[in-house]
C-alpha cells in the first residue's frame, strides 16, 4: 500500500504490553486515518456505556492519510476516546510537528488501553516503542516536561505530545499539546490520557513521507505549487500576515463577537483586543507547522517576557476577552499561557468562567461560593486566578473543572440558561445568530458544539467571491444569506460537513482546503491520489467524510443520544442585546424544520437521529448497523 506505514501501535498500560498491528489496504481505503480510523476503533473496541475515566476507555491517536506529506496544511492528527465532557464520541484535532514525526517514526496511529499503576510516558522512535516511568514528570508544567524528556533521551529534536496538570487532575476539558504551541483542546481528551496515568508520548523518526507515496514527483510538484499559492491567495495571505486574530474586528462589526457570555454581539473594548493591538502590544514572530507555507502561528511576549507557549488565537481572544468582558490583551495572553502550561482547552475554560461570571452577577453564586473571588465580568485578576484553580481543582475551581453544564446542575436555579453549551461542550467563539449553519453544526456535531464542523455561512454568501467559486467544485450551486435556514441551505450543509469531515480524516487543516482557504478541492483529490494511487473521485472522497460522521453518530446512538441532544442553548433563541444584530435571534420553528430536512438528507431517523441500516450499508457500514441492533437487543 502507498501513502501509509500500514502500522498501528497498540499499548496496554495495565499489562505493559506493546504490539504492532498491520493495516490492510482494503481496510485503509474505507478508513484512511484520522477521524475515520479513530471512529472505527472506538465503535468496535469501547464497550457501550464505558465510564470515560475507566481503564476500558480506548484512547486513539491517529494521523491522517496525508499527515506529513510535503503539502502545506497536511499536518493534522486526531485524538479520540469516549469524552468525559459529553459522555459521547470524543475527538480533538491538532497540527504542528508531532503527527508528521509519528509518520516518520513508522506508525499511522497509537491505540492506548488500560491504566498504568504509576505515571509513564511512551518513547517511540524508528519503528520501536517503549514505556518509561514518568513519576518525575507528574505535577510539572508542560515546558518543564518537554525539556526533561528531550534531555533524558538526549535529542533536542524529539517531538513531545503531552497532557498537563489539568489532565492529571481529570479536568473534563483538559487537552493535549505538542511542541507547547499546538493543541488538541476540545472534548477532554487530556483527562482521558491522564486517567491512564500517561503523561506524554515522545516521538522521533527519520523516514520521509515521499518514500511512502505512490507518485512522489506529483506530490512534490503539488506541494511546490501550493507553497507559491499561499502568497497569491488573499485568504492564505491574511492568515500569514495576521493569523486568526484578524477575525476580531469583522465579527464585532457583524454583531457576532461573543460578548459577556453571548448576551451581546459587540464589545466596547474591541479596539483593545483586535489584530492591530495584538501586533503592537504582544506579537514577536510568526511560526509554522510542518511543511506549511502559511505560517499562521504567532509568537508573543507578555509584558515584555517571551512566552514559550505561543500567542492566543482568535478563539482564545474571544473566550478570555470579550466573552468575559475583558479588554486587556496582556491578560488574555497570560490566560492563554496559563491554559497551555496546564493544558486546558482555552475555549471551554474561558466560556465556563464567563458562565460563572453571569451566575455571580445574577446572585446564583456569591463570594462564599467563589472563595471570596469577585467573579464579575471584566475582572481580569479573577479570570487568571480561576484558571489556576480549575487546573488544580482547588476550591470553586473544582466545580468549574466539571464544565458549565455539570456546574449548572450543581448551582441550580436559572444557571442552566447561562451554560452556553451543546452536549456538555461549550460553544466556540462564533455566535450562530449571524451565521445559521454554524448553529446547525453546533447542534448536530457528535462532539458537542464546535466551530470546525462546517464551512461558515459568510464564506458562501457572495456568488462572485473567490471562496464561493471554489466551493462550486463541491456541488454548491447558489450563494445564500448567512441568516437563512431553508432546504437548499441544508443541502449545502450536508455537502460541507462531509467535506470538513474528510479534512479530519486525511489530515488537512481547516485553513488549507477551499472554500475556507486556498487549496482547490481538485488539488485535494490530486494530493490523495498522488499519495495512494487510488484515483479517488469527489463522490468517493465525500463518502469517506460521511462514513466517519456516521460512525460517530452510531457511537452516540448506542450511548442513548437522540434528537433532544441536537439542540442549541436557549440564549441563541433570545435577541442579542447590542451590535449590528441587536434584537435578532434564531427561531425555534425554523431551526427544528431545518434539522428535520438535514436528517432526511443524511438518511437518519428524524425522531431518534439514528442512521438507517440502508444508509449505513450504502456507506459500507453494515457492521455498525449490526452493532446498533445488538446494543438495542441487550438494553
Amino acid at each position, binding site marked *: 500500500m502507498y501513502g501509509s506505514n500500514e502500522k498501528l501501535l497498540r499499548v496496554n498500560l495495565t499489562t505493559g504490553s506493546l504490539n504492532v498491528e498491520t493495516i490492510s489496504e482494503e481496510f485503509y481505503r474505507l478508513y484512511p486515518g484520522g477521524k475515520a480510523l479513530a471512529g472505527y476503533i472506538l465503535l468496535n473496541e469501547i464497550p457501550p456505556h464505558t465510564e470515560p475515566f475507566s481503564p476500558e476507555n480506548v484512547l486513539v491517536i491517529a494521523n491522517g492519510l496525508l499527515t506529513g506529506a510535503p503539502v502545506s496544511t497536511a499536518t493534522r492528527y486526531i485524538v479520540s476516546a469516549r469524552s468525559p465532557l459529553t459522555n459521547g464520541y470524543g475527538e480533538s484535532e491538532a497540527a504542528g510537528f508531532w503527527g508528521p514525526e509519528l509518520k516518520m517514526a513508522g506508525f499511522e496511529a497509537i491505540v492506548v488501553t488500560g491504566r498504568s499503576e504509576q505515571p509513564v510516558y511512551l518513547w517511540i522512535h524508528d519503528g520501536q516503542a517503549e514505556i518509561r516511568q514518568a513519576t518525575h514528570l507528574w505535577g510539572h508544567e508542560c515546558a518543564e516536561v518537554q525539556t526533561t524528556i528531550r534531555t533524558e533521551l538526549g535529542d533536542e529534536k524529539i517531538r513531545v505530545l503531552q497532557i498537563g496538570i489539568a489532565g492529571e487532575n481529570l479536568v473534563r476539558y483538559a487537552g493535549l499539546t505538542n511542541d507547547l504551541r499546538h493543541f488538541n483542546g476540545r472534548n477532554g481528551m487530556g483527562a482521558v490520557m491522564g486517567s491512564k496515568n500517561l503523561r506524554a508520548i515522545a516521538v522521533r523518526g527519520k523516514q520521509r513521507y515521499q518514500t511512502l507515496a505512490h507518485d512522489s514527483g506529483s506530490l512534490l510538484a503539488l506541494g511546490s505549487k501550493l507553497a507559491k499559492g499561499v502568497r497569491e491567495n*488573499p485568504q492564505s495571505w491574511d492568515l500569514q*500576515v495576521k493569523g486568526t486574530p484578524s477575525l476580531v474586528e469583522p465579527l464585532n462589526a457583524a454583531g457576532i463577537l461573543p460578548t459577556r457570555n453571548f448576551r451581546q454581539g459587540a464589545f466596547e473594548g474591541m479596539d483593545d483586543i483586535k489584530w492591530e493591538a495584538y501586533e503592537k502590544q504582544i506579537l514577536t514572530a510568526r511560526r509554522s507547522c510542518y511543511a506549511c507555507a502559511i505560517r499562521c502561528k504567532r509568537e508573543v511576549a507578555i509584558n515584555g517576557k517571551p512566552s514559550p507557549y505561543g500567542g492566543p488565537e482568535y478563539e482564545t481572544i474571544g473566550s478570555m476577552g470579550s466573552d468575559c468582558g475583558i479588554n486587556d490583551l496582556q491578560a488574555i495572553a497570560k490566560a492563554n499561557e496559563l491554559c497551555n502550561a496546564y493544558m486546558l482547552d482555552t475555549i471551554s475554560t474561558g466560556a465556563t468562567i464567563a458562565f460563572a461570571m453571569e451566575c455571580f452577577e445574577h446572585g446564583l453564586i456569591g463570594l462564599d461560593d467563589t472563595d471570596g473571588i469577585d467573579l464579575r465580568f471584566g475582572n481580569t485578576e479573577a479570570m487568571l486566578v480561576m484558571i489556576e484553580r480549575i487546573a488544580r481543582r482547588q476550591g470553586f475551581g473544582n466545580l468549574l473543572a466539571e464544565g458549565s453544564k455539570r456546574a449548572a446542575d450543581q448551582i441550580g436555579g436559572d444557571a442552566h440558561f447561562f451554560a452556553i453549551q451543546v452536549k456538555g461542550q461549550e460553544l466556540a467563539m462564533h455566535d450562530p445568530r449571524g451565521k445559521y449553519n454554524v448553529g446547525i453544526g453546533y447542534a448536530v456535531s457528535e462532539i458537542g458544539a464546535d466551530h470546525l464542523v462546517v464551512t461558515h455561512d*459568510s*464564506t458562501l454568501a457572495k456568488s*462572485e*467571491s473567490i471562496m464561493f467559486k471554489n466551493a462550486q467544485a463541491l456541488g454548491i450551486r447558489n450563494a445564500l444569506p448567512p441568516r437563512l435556514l431553508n432546504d437548499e441551505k441544508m443541502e449545502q450543509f450536508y455537502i460541507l460537513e462531509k467535506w470538513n469531515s474528510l479534512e479530519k480524516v486525511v489530515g488537512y487543516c481547516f485553513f488549507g482546503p477551499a472554500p475556507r482557504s486556498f487549496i482547490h478541492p481538485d488539488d485535494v483529490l490530486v494530493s490523495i491520489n498522488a499519495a495512494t494511487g487510488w484515483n479517488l473521485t469527489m463522490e468517493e472522497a465525500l463518502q469517506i467524510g460521511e462514513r466517519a460522521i456516521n460512525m460517530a453518530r452510531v457511537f452516540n446512538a448506542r450511548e442513548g443520544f437522540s434528537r433532544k441532544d441536537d439542540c442549541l442553548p436557549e440564549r441563541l433563541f433570545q435577541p442579542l442585546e447590542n451590535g449590528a444584530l441587536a434584537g435578532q435571534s434564531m427561531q425555534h420553528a425554523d431551526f427544528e424544520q431545518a434539522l428535520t430536512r438535514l436528517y432526511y438528507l443524511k438518511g437518519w431517523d428524524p425522531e431518534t437521529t439514528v442512521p438507517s441500516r440502508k444508509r449505513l450499508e450504502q456507506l459500507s457500514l453494515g457492521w455498525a448497523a449490526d452493532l446498533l441492533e445488538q446494543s438495542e437487543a441487550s438494553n
Partner: protein
Amino acid sequence: MNLQLGGHLPFYVSTRQGKLEVPLKEPARLSEVLSQLGIPVSEVYLTVVNGELVTLDETTVSDSDDVRLFPPMDGG
C-alpha cells in the same frame, strides 16, 4: 476619505496596507471608488460607514467619511 480594509482586503492594494487616505473632491458611489482602487466588490462582505453597518451597493461616500470594509470571515 479614511478607508480601512480588514481581513484579506489589503491583498488587493499595492502597498498591502490596511489603512488608506482616499481624497474625494465630491461625493461618489463607494462601489466606484473601490473599483478604481482595484478592490473587488465581490470580496467585500461588510461595509461600515461612520460606525454604521450599510449596504455597499447603495452607499455614497464623501471625503470626511470613515469607511471600514471586511471580507467574509470564517472560523478557526
